[in-house]
């Protein structure tokens, strides 16, 4: 049965890649193309958060802060220091990751909910700093004039060009993280999530694993932030708030914690839900909140878990029919 599932997922991987290639030929409207681009960037964040929450069992409610830090570092490097995008992108990932590492090393000794709350604190402090440290961030008025990336003299300044910039980055990151999850290290991470004490007995350095997952998720958030900064060309410190952090968690959860396709499904679901409910903007958070509760109570494994359950049921049934 496992083989069947793996076969399905391999086939669906091909399907997704084809969809990615076909998408810009179908989506011509610049608005929807922009939406698609931001969904791709969100997938990067969600893949990192899924590694942390889904595979390692740690909750972060401050990931918007890491996205914000990455975005501002990239903006600062390229505008104030005159760095090229190709240097600013990895640097913002690295610096954000370093911050994540330092923070994680001190905070990840704590269990579950304590980490969640400490991470809210980190998120709030980051926002205060982004608003008040005007010399570096331009404060509440926002950071303007972030240049578009250039690729061999070609300015990546349209939605379509940015799409083709994002696709290889997203696929590479997705592939790297999946390889990690399937490796011995990935099994160690999952053991931390499933049974911390037992993992420790088997010689897994629990804190080190948590810090590793946290750092990787911070790197990815930083990269996503940098990509956001250069896509919009403008940053507001208020967009990296608690609600944003919650919506990241929501995406990972709705997609299915600990399923490799989870983040992708979750981002697509939430982005389209947001778009559909845009006219009832004031109800958006009510819907989010109820969705969070509903998913936990009725569908604790998200869409992926639901679908996996469905497909195994189908496989079982066809098996029975064969008898």
């Amino acid at each position: 049965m496992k083989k069947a599932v793996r076969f399905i997922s391999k086939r669906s991987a091909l399907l997704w890649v084809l969809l990615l290639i076909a998408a810009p030929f179908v989506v011509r409207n610049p608005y929807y193309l922009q939406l698609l681009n931001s969904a791709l960037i969100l997938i990067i964040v969600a893949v990192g958060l899924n590694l942390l929450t889904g595979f390692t069992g740690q909750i972060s409610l401050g990931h918007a802060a890491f996205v914000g830090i990455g975005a501002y570092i990239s903006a600062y490097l390229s505008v104030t220091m005159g760095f090229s995008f190709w240097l600013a992108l990895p640097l913002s990932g690295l610096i954000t990751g370093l911050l994540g590492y330092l923070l994680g090393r001190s905070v990840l000794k704590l269990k579950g909910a304590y980490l969640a709350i400490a991470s809210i604190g980190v998120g709030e402090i980051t926002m205060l700093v982004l608003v008040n440290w005007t010399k570096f961030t331009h404060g509440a008025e926002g950071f303007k004039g972030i240049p578009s990336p250039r690729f061999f003299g070609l300015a990546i300044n349209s939605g379509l060009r940015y799409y083709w910039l994002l696709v290889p980055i997203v696929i590479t990151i997705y592939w790297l993280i999946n390889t990690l999850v399937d490796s011995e290290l990935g099994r160690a991470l999952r053991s931390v999530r499933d049974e911390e004490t037992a993992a420790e007995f088997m010689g897994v350095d629990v804190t080190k694993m948590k810090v590793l997952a946290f750092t990787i998720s911070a790197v990815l958030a930083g990269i996503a932030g940098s990509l956001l900064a250069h896509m919009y060309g403008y940053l507001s410190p208020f967009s990296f708030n608690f609600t944003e952090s919650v919506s990241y968690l929501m995406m990972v959860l709705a997609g299915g914690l600990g399923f490799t396709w989870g983040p992708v499904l979750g981002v697509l679901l939430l982005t389209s839900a947001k778009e559909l409910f845009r006219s009832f903007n004031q109800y958006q958070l009510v819907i989010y909140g109820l969705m969070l509760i509903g998913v936990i109570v009725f569908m604790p494994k998200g869409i992926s878990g639901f679908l996996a359950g469905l497909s195994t049921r189908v496989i079982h049934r066809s098996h029975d029919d064969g008898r």
Partner: protein
Amino acid sequence: MSDLKIDPSDILQVIVGGLAIGCVYALVALGFTIISNALHLINFAQGDMYMLGAVFGLTFFTQVRMPYFVSLVTAALVTALVGVCIERTIFRPLRNSPPLNMVIATIGISITIRAVALLIWGSQAMSFPAVFGSVPVKIGSIRIMPDYLWILGIAVAAMVALQFFFKKTLTGKAMNATAQNRNAASMMGINIFRSDSLAAAISAGLGGIGGVLVGPVFFVETTMGASAALKGFAAAVLGGFGSVPGAIVGGVVLGLAENLSATFISSTYRDAVAFVILIGVLIFRPNGILGKKVLRA
């Protein structure tokens, strides 16, 4: 502020203000502590109980025109009722699910309550009419706003009543027993489900009282729960998570630290004080001031 010469009586004013706000944080912290001891969960919706207390209190006081103390009690009771409903409909079915799911569920509850409150009361900050008058009370050469004295008095009274309830009444003792060992308590004939509901009611009600108390001092907003939750939680962790006296001590220390640093260092980062203390305590002294060894160091 910091380059001005500071009058000793100003310092006292700042201290009384800090104590009063600290007592409100202590109420929120107690809410966290009680529900965590009973149901083994960290309730992210705790701050929204505080917000509900404030908006209900304001509505009862200005729309229904109840006297302040009646609206205080009614708002606390309504908030407690909300707490019971949440416990019955969401916490109870999730009782045996992993902690991760519980935490996420309480986050969902918090977001829902906040969003519904926004629909009802709007995003405008509402001001509570002056309840206690605006004439400062003079003690010697010190002048103190009457609000702070009332907050102090009522909060302390609520905490004393709570201690009495847990130490002297049969129901309170039954709740303690349930928190310590559910199976044993249940075999002794204690209705553990009633204890759960009561714990949810008390912790929500305490948050509600806190909200009504600060109403006349600060503005009332539907988003006020977020920072209250963080500060209440910081207070609980500072005092030692899970300890009732710890929650009170933590709240008072936090309130003082915040007010003093806002006066003497910088008011820009006033709200950051709580988070810095929280993260510092979590890193360096995870068991808090009075805490038992509940956290892994």
